């Protein structure tokens, strides 16, 4: 077979496509001839890290992905989990790190657009979004510009599309100076019997292109996402993708309308390496070949080559296999929404991926091998060394009140209001808890009392100190945040952001983090149903901190028993549920050491998963029984920060003075895991209160009564009282001041 090719395939060209010599040899062996330029592009797109998961696949397989409620685990556009009553929640998280560094607004916007598309491709209407953002040091010259662009982009797309953004994370660290992280999460709701998949079925059926036209956007983008940045980044820059949320909103409505007609056999959105990945996946999954006629692809620009069309990452596009007798009906729907609709190919029975253009065949490749035979590596890795414990006499001291005020007004613990007020958190009218609590909560449309909770978590500094414990902690914190609202954690999605896996230390971080995530998910019965891997997050050889972001979803059977973090009234006893005997002990890798003393030493806190589950189940029980009046889990900044957040949210103070004879620093700033603050509307002298304490003890849970709400000051042990108003102004001040350049 000969296919005309006017571009010579040189070793340099192969290397420019991110293909290693042995990978290229594998291509030659597979097809028995030199690939055409277009074919080389197709291989590079399918075999790069982003699409093939070649470095991570071996380890991803070890994650628990099944559970009684899991309808669809990893491998489709998004995970699907049963929430009862014939409905399912469909969700996923995905990174758009490199594009956001190059063009923060459009990079973030198209990241949000991509994840929304993943969700509605499955037939689900998006109901909630989150965004986990990591920027360089606040004082780094690019940071402020990147923050303002990324946040505007996330909002610009999500707000216009019409999905409430109910949660997320924002962190700053110098390790992200040259490589920010933008991880976008979306969840949607669908009927369990109307989920759509990407597997094509049936020979000779039309392959239909829908949505926006194809331009040269991001040609080479998927390859770029799998390459390290260097100083020559400008040369590598492809045409930036621009998001069009108006088109996406129409695409959503048109797709859902079309799905309801029964015309759709298979559907796949065009994400990274657009037409290539989507067509190959649909065919390969269904054991079918695909033939495309590029002359029919709607294009936005003149003289596009087949190579460009196959690799274009133009946004807001979909590929479908349709029932032939419904083609006209489908076309009418798309025309009503003023979107492009073109039959660009058909399914075949020969397992080939054929591309025709101007009467020539420009590619003819074995479709299964493009996906299944992608290289898979067992990359060498070395287990990271756990840091030595802090010496017992090595606890830097500081006035507790001063330390608290400084931390609450610092970049790590301060309010993210500046960010989330740029997001529409209320649209759709179902938001029960908007950002600022432990998890965002939206009620299930059409159901009187059911709701879903969402949280996104990871603590990269723990992952760096100990990727295994850090991986566990990310899952546990997410599970805890969901639990703190009263939700049953259902399942999670993971977004694994790491450096260059070809370096054994980095590969070691990835392996150990996945092992930790897997362990936590197993014990907590919190399966991973979708995810995304972003590697090569490095600039000039320096990697980011290992950042496996976990996005979790929980189910609240009755939202009238939804717990919030604000103290609910005066004179309510405060319990520290799940505490070690000294309330708090662990200062290794704490915010106290890092942000007040510039120390990054000590081990990451240990997560006792069995204890975690027991404590969480107990707290959830208190919420469901209506006993808990306010609940907040403890994370960064420990007990002091947790109390301050509850006080600020309510305007009510608290006095916490029951513990004597311990060093106050670990007590108030230790970051021991598995702890919750819970208030109850019970008299501390009452029998009911004592019964509660007894019940905790019976479960083997230490749940000391540590203090009482009331007044307008927060009093921590013997420290000077701090006015809640002062805490609030520190807490609310940092972000707006920083963005105003003060």
């Amino acid at each position, binding site marked *: 077979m000969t296919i005309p090719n006017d571009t010579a395939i040189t070793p340099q060209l192969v290397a420019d496509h991110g293909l290693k010599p042995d990978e290229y040899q594998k291509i030659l062996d597979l097809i028995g001839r030199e690939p055409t330029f277009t074919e080389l592009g197709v291989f590079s797109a399918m075999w790069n890290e982003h699409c093939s998961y070649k470095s991570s696949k071996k380890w991803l397989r070890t994650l628990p992905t099944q559970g009684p409620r899991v309808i669809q685990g990893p491998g489709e556009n998004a995970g699907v989990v049963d929430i009862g009553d014939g409905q399912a929640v469909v969700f996923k998280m995905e990174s758009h790190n490199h594009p956001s560094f*190059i*063009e923060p*607004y*459009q990079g973030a916007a198209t990241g949000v657009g991509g994840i929304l598309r993943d969700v509605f491709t499955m037939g689900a209407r998006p109901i909630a979004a989150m965004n986990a953002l990591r920027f360089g040091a606040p004082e780094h010259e690019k940071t402020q510009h990147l923050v303002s662009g990324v946040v505007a982009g996330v909002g610009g797309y999500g707000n216009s599309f019409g999905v409430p953004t109910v949660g997320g994370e924002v962190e700053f660290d110098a390790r992200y100076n040259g490589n920010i992280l933008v991880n976008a999460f979306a969840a949607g709701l669908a009927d369990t019997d109307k989920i759509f998949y990407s597997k094509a079925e049936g020979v000779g059926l039309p392959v239909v292109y829908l949505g*926006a036209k194809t*331009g*040269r*956007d991001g040609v080479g983008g998927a390859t770029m996402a799998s390459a390290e940045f260097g100083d020559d980044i400008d040369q590598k*820059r492809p*045409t*930036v*993708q*621009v*998001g*069009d949320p*108006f*088109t996406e909103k129409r695409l959503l409505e048109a797709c859902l309308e079309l799905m309801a007609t029964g015309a759709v056999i298979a559907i796949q959105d065009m994400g990274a390496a657009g037409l290539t990945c989507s067509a190959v996946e649909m065919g390969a999954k269904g054991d079918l070949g695909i033939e495309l006629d590029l002359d029919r692809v709607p294009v*936005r*620009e003149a003289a596009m080559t087949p190579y460009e069309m196959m690799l274009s990452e*133009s*946004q807001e596009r979909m590929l479908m296999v349709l029932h032939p007798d419904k083609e006209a009906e489908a076309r009418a729907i798309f025309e009503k929404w*003023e979107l492009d609709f073109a039959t660009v190919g058909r399914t075949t029975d020969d397992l080939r991926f054929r591309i025709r253009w101007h009467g020539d065949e420009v590619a003819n490749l074995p479709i299964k091998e493009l996906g299944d035979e992608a290289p898979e590596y067992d990359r060498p890795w070395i287990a990271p060394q756990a840091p030595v414990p802090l010496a017992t006499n090595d606890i830097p001291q500081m006035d507790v009140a001063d330390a608290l005020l400084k931390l609450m007004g610092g970049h790590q613990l301060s309010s993210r209001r500046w960010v989330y007020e740029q997001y529409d958190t209320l649209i759709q009218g179902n938001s029960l808890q908007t950002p600022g609590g432990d998890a965002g909560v939206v009620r299930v449309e059409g159901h009187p009392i059911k709701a879903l909770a969402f949280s996104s978590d990871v603590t990269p500094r723990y992952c760096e100190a100990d990727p295994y414990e850090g991986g566990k902690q990310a899952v546990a914190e997410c599970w805890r945040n969901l639990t703190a609202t009263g939700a049953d954690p259902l399942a999670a999605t993971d977004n694994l952001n790491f450096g260059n896996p070809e370096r054994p230390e980095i590969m070691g971080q990835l392996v150990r983090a996945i092992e930790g995530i897997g362990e936590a998910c197993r014990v907590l019965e919190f399966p991973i149903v979708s995810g995304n891997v972003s590697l090569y997050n490095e600039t000039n050889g320096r990697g980011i901190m290992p950042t496996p972001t976990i996005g979790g979803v929980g189910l609240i059977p009755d939202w009238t028993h939804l717990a919030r973090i604000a103290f609910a009234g005066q004179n309510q006893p405060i319990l520290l549920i799940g505490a070690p005997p000294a309330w708090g002990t662990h200062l290794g890798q704490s915010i106290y050491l890092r942000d007040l003393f510039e120390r990054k030493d000590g081990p990451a806190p240990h997560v006792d998963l069995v204890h975690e589950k027991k404590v969480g189940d107990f707290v959830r029980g208190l919420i469901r029984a209506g006993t808990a009046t306010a609940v907040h889990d403890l994370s960064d900044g420990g007990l002091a920060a947790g109390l301050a957040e509850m006080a600020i949210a309510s305007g009510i103070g608290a006095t916490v003075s029951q513990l004597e004879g311990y060093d106050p620093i670990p007590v108030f700033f230790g970051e021991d895991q598995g702890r919750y603050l819970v208030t109850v509307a019970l008299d501390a002298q009452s029998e009911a209160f004592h019964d509660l304490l007894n019940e905790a003890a019976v479960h083997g849970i230490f749940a000391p009564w540590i203090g009482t709400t009331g007044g307008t000051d927060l009093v921590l042990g013997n420290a000077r009282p701090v006015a809640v108003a002062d805490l609030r102004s520190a807490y609310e001040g940092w972000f707006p001041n920083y963005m105003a350049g003060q």
Partner: protein
Amino acid sequence: MKARVTVTLKAGVLDPQGQAIEGSLKGLGFSGVASVRQGKVFDLVLDGASEEEARIAITQMCEKLLANTVIENYAVEISN
């Protein structure tokens, strides 16, 4: 000293604004419209600077703020 900076999208960059306007113009019956691309103008008044100095300053303003040079081109016109 007055100056006008015109910022336009680079060729090949998607222009959803232009597209929507094009669609609307056609809907309003302007059938001859083959394409619309939208851009921005900034009219600046500068205090006492020579044309030379003004041009240098404005170029810097464009690079730093007025244009997003990843996706936009700019042109500077100085009048009087």
